[in-house]
């Protein structure tokens, strides 16, 4: 191990000092005194430097230091360098922090940082604008004390899904979505977005569809009426029989589409969840099965494994069951089969329609509940669907707190399952009384 030169010179100074003291002691006598004096000189000088270092570290100017070389000069030079570096780093972080502040300030979405206790640690100016939070007073308050909508409070304690929509606390007709994103150690980021405009657009679209469907229905009724009369007219030339029959079919299809559209808009715009009427599922499924059995399509079997009933709206539940069975029957060849299953499971009850039909390609499964989405456009129209059945099923099911899952394999068949939660399931006791 080699000694750094600064230490070597320091030891040389000490050795020189001691040597001189010994020489003087030998010359004049009293060597002990001379050595003590030399050591005192050395300690004094060291203390002076330590004092200076202390002051420098306190942030004072350097003073009374004359060396340009040696141990102390180098120590001070290194302290200076470290301090300059720290200063630069501090400046850099300041700049970075300012940039982050400015960019989050410019965001149009509100951002709020919360700790695990829902207490506000920080928020940006957009959060002030959207929620009325006050930067002077609200840091440290719980967010659910200031944004008190019951849905939001429930969401904050158990965030799931893509956030929640709540009315704006500041703007009477405004709507906000809030999404909670956990990050880091027990911290959470709440992103607040103003969706007033989107909500209005969505409503305009819905109103338009609803109005258009209603307006189209009356003229269509008149047209269908005359077509019916024409079709039954015995004096009609034979050449007209086919066109009139086609007109009748198309008019009927149009009526169905309009009816489904009206039903769908009604389901979409309903704000409250479906009611809790007692609905006997088995009694509802049997006539549906009978209807499809008599159509000469695929074999339809019905398996009732539970006597559970549902609490919901009868017409909407009927429309869920009917649409799913209808769908399966249309996409299954006459040689195939459709099974209708009603069973209980741990989470509640399940209604399933299992067919051996043409199936759905995997990448299209998430899209089949979209309005007018068709896996194979030519084929679907040929089998006479409205393109709205599954969309109606999805919305009606949502209003019953249920969930639709679809499993399918192309060429082998599909399984559509409606899962109903426990709260919606009821049983009829022996006395004929509904019990929960």
């Amino acid at each position, binding site marked *: 191990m080699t000694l750094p030169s600064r230490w070597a010179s320091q030891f040389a100074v000490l050795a020189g000092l001691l040597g001189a003291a010994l020489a003087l002691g030998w010359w004049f006598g009293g060597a002990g005194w001379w050595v003590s004096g030399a050591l005192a000189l050395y300690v004094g000088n060291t203390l002076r430097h330590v004092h200076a270092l202390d002051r420098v570290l306190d942030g004072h100017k350097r003073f009374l230091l004359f060396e340009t070389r040696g141990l102390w000069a180098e120590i001070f030079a290194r302290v200076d360098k470290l301090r300059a570096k720290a200063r630069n780093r501090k400046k850099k972080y300041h700049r970075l922090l300012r940039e982050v502040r400015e960019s989050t300030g410019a965001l149009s979405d509100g951002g709020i940082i919360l700790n695990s206790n829902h207490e506000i640690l920080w928020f940006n100016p957009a959060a002030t604008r959207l929620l009325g939070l006050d930067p002077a007073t609200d840091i440290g308050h719980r967010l659910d004390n200031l944004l008190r909508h*019951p849905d939001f409070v429930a969401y904050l304690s158990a965030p799931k899904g893509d956030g929640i929509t709540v009315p704006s606390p500041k703007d009477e007709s405004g709507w906000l979505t809030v999404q909670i994103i956990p990050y880091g150690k027990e911290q959470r980021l709440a992103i607040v977005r103003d969706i007033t405009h989107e909500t209005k657009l969505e409503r305009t679209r819905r109103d338009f569809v609803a109005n258009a469907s209603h307006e189209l229905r009356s003229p269509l009724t008149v047209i269908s009426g005359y077509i019916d009369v024409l079709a039954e007219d015995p004096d009609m030339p034979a050449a007209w029989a086919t066109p009139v029959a086609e007109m009748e079919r198309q008019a009927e299809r149009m009526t169905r589409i309009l009816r489904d559209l009206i039903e769908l808009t009604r389901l979409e715009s309903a704000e409250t969840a479906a009611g809790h009427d007692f609905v006997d599922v088995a009694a509802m499924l049997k006539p549906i099965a009978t209807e499809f059995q008599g159509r000469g399509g695929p074999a339809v079997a019905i398996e009732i494994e539970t006597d559970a009933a549902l609490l919901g709206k009868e017409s909407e539940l009927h429309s869920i069951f009917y649409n799913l069975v209808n769908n399966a029957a249309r996409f299954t060849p006459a040689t195939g089969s459709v099974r209708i299953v009603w069973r209980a499971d741990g989470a509640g009850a399940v209604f399933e329609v299992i067919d051996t039909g043409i199936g759905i390609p995997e990448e299209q499964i998430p899209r089949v509940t979209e309005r007018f989405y068709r896996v194979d456009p030519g084929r679907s129209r040929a089998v006479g669907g409205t393109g709205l059945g599954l969309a109606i099923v999805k919305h009606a099911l949502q209003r019953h707190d249920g969930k639709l899952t679809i499993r399918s394999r192309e060429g082998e068949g599909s399984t559509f399952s409606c899962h109903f939660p426990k709260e919606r399931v009821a049983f009829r006791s022996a006395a004929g009384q509904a019990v929960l």
Partner: protein
Amino acid sequence: MEVEDLGHHISRRFNEDLERVRNSVLSMGGLVEEQLDRAIKALSDADSRLGLQVAEDDVKVNRMEVSIDEECSRILATRAPTAGDLRLVIAIIKTITDLERIGDEAEKIGVLAARLASVERPTTNYRELRNLARHVKQMVHGALNAFARLDTKGALEVVKADDTVDEEYESIYRQGITFMMEDPRTITRMMDLTWMARALERIGDHAKNICEYVIFMVHGKDVRHIGIKNIEAEVEQGSRRVESGS
């Protein structure tokens, strides 16, 4: 050392208890706000189903009041709070009573809105009433915000706003009488409308009460029935004391 730890533990639990009950008051407030909001929406959208739903959901508010009340009794019995803590518990007990009453008035509005939904509506769609409702909603919102932030200045603003609400109620009432004298066929509808305005005006009073409890909780001064000027003076004095730190 052990004894100290235990003492610390108990007071931490105590703090958590107080904090929890305060939070549940505010979630009850959130529920009441939503009830009021939906009741008013039922009126402006002529949605009778929503109105009846509001009436039905009032039990949720009542249930919360009972559970918070029990929690407060438990804290009083087991912790024997003093000074600021005691004021907090007292203010909470009073606040939930007023919140529950606001819930009752919202229920009333919901039922009346459901009834009005099926009769003929004036061309203004009850503009005066909706205006009054907006002010009252802001008052309730402001009162709960003041409670959450312990903000006496905000509380004072709400107390002041109550005068405007009273005036608006007065004018709706007079207008109703005029209509009824002009055309007796409108009497049923106008009576319902007056009742609704009355319910809103009462909600304003309850919001004002909550603000007075906030001032009591923060400054320890009872400011009921002393007039707005005196309340203002108390709040001013109280916040000066807080600022000077004594």
